[in-house]
């Protein structure tokens, strides 16, 4: 059953169309990866799904709530947002609240739980992500990886139908990445519907059911993740996938992942990510 349906969507910034003719469907319980070069419009696409970005044409439907670009208003915007939450590249935790209070906030501010219920639920989610011991710390005292895991906890505590991820690991130090990817992988196993904008191709290949390749504001390809994100073959997408997999390495060196003798740091990071990926496989 489709949970998200986007029809003929376009987004315009003053005179420039940054998204055009976007059609996509996200099945309930599935994971969709949106990939593409910087500036292609993938983040804008994600942000239109909860109307942080206003569409100029077309329609968005999330969990049965449909909105037309020309019929936007406050009420329908909040109805759409009630269906989904978002995890941001820069975490965007509320700096005046502790980690626990951040996770409690969706339950309390949207009046879906009492204080005690909210606290119990929030603590449970924090425990699931192994964040219990930092519950009373303020965001500024947390590492980037911890902040991002708290923000994932905050996004899922109210059990939204969809969680949107906007490059959740792009602002992190390399050694923090695997912890956050693990947290996302955990959600995938619980069949929470997710749409993820990411540059972590290997990760996307492992957890995504569907992949969407965006370039110049248009969807260039859409299909099963393992096909779309395949690095074999030729063409624009394979080139892009290859360029991501080889980033940080000399262009001429055609080395196998994880066996880069000249770059110990890179080696460690990749093997981390592979263990994440194989961990998911083993659990499936």
């Amino acid at each position: 059953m489709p949970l998200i349906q986007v029809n003929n969507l376009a987004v315009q910034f003053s005179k420039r169309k940054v998204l055009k003719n976007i059609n996509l469907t996200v099945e309930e319980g599935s994971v969709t990866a949106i990939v593409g070069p910087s500036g292609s419009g993938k983040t804008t696409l994600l942000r239109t799904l909860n109307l942080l970005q206003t569409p100029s044409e077309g329609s968005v439907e999330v969990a049965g709530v449909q909105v037309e670009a020309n019929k936007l208003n406050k009420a329908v915007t909040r109805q759409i947002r009630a269906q989904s939450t978002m995890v941001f590249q820069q975490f965007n935790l509320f700096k005046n609240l502790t980690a626990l209070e951040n996770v409690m906030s969706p339950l309390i501010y949207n009046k879906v739980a009492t204080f005690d219920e909210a606290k119990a639920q929030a603590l449970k989610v924090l425990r699931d992500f192994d964040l219990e011991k930092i519950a009373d710390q303020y965001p500024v005292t947390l590492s980037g990886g911890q902040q991002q895991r708290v923000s994932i906890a905050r996004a899922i505590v109210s059990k939204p139908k969809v969680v949107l991820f906007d490059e959740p690991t792009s602002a992190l130090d390399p050694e923090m990445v695997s912890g956050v990817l693990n947290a996302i992988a955990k959600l995938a196993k619980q069949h929470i519907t997710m749409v993820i904008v990411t540059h972590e191709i290997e990760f996307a290949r492992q957890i995504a059911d569907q992949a969407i390749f965006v370039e110049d504001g248009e969807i260039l390809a859409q299909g099963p993740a393992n096909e779309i994100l395949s690095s074999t073959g030729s063409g624009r997408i394979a080139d892009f996938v290859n360029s991501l997999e080889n980033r940080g390495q000399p262009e001429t060196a055609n080395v196998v992942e994880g066996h880069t003798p000249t770059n110990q740091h890179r080696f460690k990071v990749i093997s981390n990510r592979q263990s994440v990926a194989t961990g998911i496989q083993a659990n499936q």
Partner: protein
Amino acid sequence: MTFSWSYFIGLFPQLIKYIPLTLIMAVVAMLISVVLGGLLTLVQLYAARPFQLLVKLYVSFFRGIPTLVLLFIVYYGLPEISPVFKGVSALTAAIAGLGVKESAYLIEIFRAGIASVDQGQIEAGEALNFSFVRIFTSIVLPQAALNALPATGNTFVSLLKETSLAFALGVTEIFADGKLLASASLRFFEVYVAVGLIYWVMIIIYTWLQKRVEERLSRPYRRVVADAINSSEQSSSAV
């Protein structure tokens, strides 16, 4: 005439009797300016364009005229325009005038404080489907208030000193009393230095208090302090 220490020291018991009046003027004027400035900041940020322009005009006017002129307009000028203002006492007029004047400065300070809260947190609130009022009161305001606190404190410091202008409306506060004492004894130097010292000490005490409050409130945002708290908690729990 040489500096008379005995006369100088003898002035203080007389002058400090007026400290409460000065403090009342400053505090009440400050409360007026915070409420007025806060409301007008909201108008400037979120109301329709014509209202925003009116607030701009307000800020420009009250920042642009000398405080003494403003006080004269309020106390001597307004009763001519409307009989409503005829019964207004000099003290009330001084407090109202100072409050309005400082509110114009506070609007700018509050606006900068609100702008300093990063857009990302507001977007996070929107993505979590919080209402506009909720985002403003629970996320933006606490952080904006903290950011605006030092500059707001400076406004209070200048307000405290400007209460001395109330002498010109006939309010007997520290400075006015000093003038009376000086014209009786003709020891101008001793009297005005004593008056100056009293303001200075009040401001030193206030500045110290404000610093304590700032430190307390900014704990969540300061890594070093928070770490110190954590480690002290850990060591105390270890014991």
